[in-house]
């Protein structure tokens, strides 16, 4: 079996092999693997099909985002944040804008806050829809749920294009507000999409909710307890599936989230099924928020008139701003030394930190389970590797 042993740098030694039960099999899942959601690699040691060791290997998509940002102006960093988690660029914009606003003490006009909530929640919808589709794809459902999810996601991306000009790299927010106001008829389109969305969720649920194969595959797989989740810094739906009641929209009440009436679903077990169901439930809550926000959207300016976008120089100091991104707590930590470029620009990537417990979750499970556990974490390599 020597040839079958990986000899790469971070390969795991198999010295402790018990010769009575045979050799361990070491496989490298990724960086070229259809289910690692990008160029992610896991060095997996298998006993038969059971995982006895798993080491994630990062950095295949590393481009030193933080270093690039140190050479850019505060405005120039904004389009780069789109490319962190390229599925939900608008919430990345929001987190960065929030951090800069905290750093410089900028007030955001009310209409802009509403626009942020609307676009941000639409982002959450399309992210979660895509994720549950991909999770089913990882489970082997030959694309059908994924295509249904994408059909729905497409409508939201069309809205983004009509508003910001781009489907994914929106570059929509600015510190002090938003870049552009709604075009004519946009709100009606958004209303239609939002009202049609629960229909898609119902369809998706009747396709899969009571499916025996889905339940057998996902329940009891990749369990994270509440204490583990808090200690490992899990955030977003990952933490809430384990029963951690921590939604930054409720806790920090950033923006205008305290005005909206919505609930935070919590899981009991913390397995893949809970993570999947939580996303479905969160989508329903997001639809509620969107309905309220579209109803209440006030007129007014969308940019703080006192904020200078170009040549922006905040006072020396530092700030940590965080929002509840679709994937978890997305934070930006900025240090200013008074120059037009940030002295230090740090992204707190939710998906990287959610991966902390990957090995713990996978141990003792099968190869097939690794794939769905990874799928349920919802990683985007643009953000993990930055």
């Amino acid at each position, binding site marked *: 079996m020597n040839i079958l042993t990986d000899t790469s740098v971070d390969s795991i030694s198999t010295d402790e092999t018990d010769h009575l039960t045979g050799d361990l099999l070491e496989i490298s899942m990724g960086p070229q693997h259809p289910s690692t959601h990008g160029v992610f690699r896991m060095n997996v040691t298998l006993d038969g099909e059971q995982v006895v060791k798993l080491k994630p290997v990062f950095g295949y998509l590393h481009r030193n985002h933080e270093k690039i940002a140190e050479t*850019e*102006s505060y*405005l*120039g*960093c*904004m*389009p*780069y944040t*789109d*490319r962190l988690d390229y599925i939900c660029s608008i919430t990345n914009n929001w987190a960065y804008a929030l951090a800069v606003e905290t750093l410089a003490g900028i007030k955001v006009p009310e209409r802009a806050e509403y626009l942020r909530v609307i676009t941000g929640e639409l982002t959450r919808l399309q992210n979660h829809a895509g994720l549950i589709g991909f999770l089913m794809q990882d489970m082997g459902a030959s694309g*059908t749920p994924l295509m*249904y999810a994408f*059909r729905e996601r*497409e409508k939201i991306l*069309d809205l983004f*294009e*009509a*508003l*910001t*000009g*781009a489907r994914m*790299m929106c*570059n929509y927010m600015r510190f002090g507000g938003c*870049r*552009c106001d709604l*075009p*004519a008829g946009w709100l009606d389109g958004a209303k239609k999409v939002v009202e049609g969305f629960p229909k898609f969720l119902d*369809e998706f649920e*009747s*396709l*899969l*909710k*009571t*499916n*025996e*194969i*889905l*339940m057998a595959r996902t329940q009891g797989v990749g369990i994270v307890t509440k204490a583990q989740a808090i200690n490992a810094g899990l955030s977003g739906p990952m933490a809430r599936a384990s029963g951690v009641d921590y939604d930054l929209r409720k806790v920090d009440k950033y923006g205008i989230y305290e005005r909206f009436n919505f609930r935070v679903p919590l899981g009991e077990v913390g397995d893949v099924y809970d993570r999947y169901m939580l996303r479905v439930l969160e989508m329903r809550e997001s639809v509620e928020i969107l309905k309220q926000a579209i109803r209440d959207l006030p007129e007014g300016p969308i940019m703080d008139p006192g904020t200078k*976008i*170009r040549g922006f120089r905040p006072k020396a100091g530092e700030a940590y701003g965080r929002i509840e991104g679709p994937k978890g707590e997305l934070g930006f930590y900025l240090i200013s030394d008074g120059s037009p470029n940030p002295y230090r620009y740090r992204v707190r990537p939710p998906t990287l930190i959610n991966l902390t417990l990957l090995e713990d979750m996978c141990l003792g499970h099968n190869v097939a389970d690794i794939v769905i556990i990874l799928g349920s974490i919802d990683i985007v390599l643009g953000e993990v590797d930055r």
Partner: protein
Amino acid sequence: MLGEGIVKGLAETARNFFGSYVNKERLTTVQFPEERLPQIEATRDFPFLVYDGTDPEPGLRCVACQICEKECPPKCIYIVKSADKKPDATGKAQFYPAQFDIDISVCMSCQICVEVCPFDAIKMDVEFEMSSEDRFGGLLLDKYKLAKSNEYYNKIHPTEAGAVDAALAEERAKAKLAAEAKAKKDAEVAAAKAAAAAAPPPPDATPALAAETPAPAVATASGETK
């Protein structure tokens, strides 16, 4: 009963299977080269340079101020400022870009150049079929490839272009008024030298704002009158 959920799922896919034949909502695919989606007005991909009038050479609004070059996050714009001034579409002497290149293989379509441009000279295009066999040269657009007329801009982004044109017209009208006032004053002051100052200014190429005003004016051609 075992299999209930499976049967439900089968019913759902069957519904979608037949639905895709009768319901246009279900079959959203667009057969691309033959069918095309209607152009969304806000769509953006790569920048282009707007020129007024019919000839791009004098009509380019760009005055090579190089703000976009500085602000461009991936640094894909390359500008060489001209040494001399040439009259632009309105007839005023302006600096112009001797060279204006955008490497669209580097450009990330963030439209920050559009936002920072004080002269409404650079705008976002919607043309996306730009594949080229030459990986480097073919994707490096010079100012002749980048220059597109204001009519084209009006066609692709009607609302935005309308607003820009209105603002520009207002600026020009203001500039004209100011220049007329100034010319009048000059005329009064220089009444003695009647031949030199009394000549009426050309209708379009009216001298404009004072040079120190940073407003998005097309031109600051006060040098002409002085």
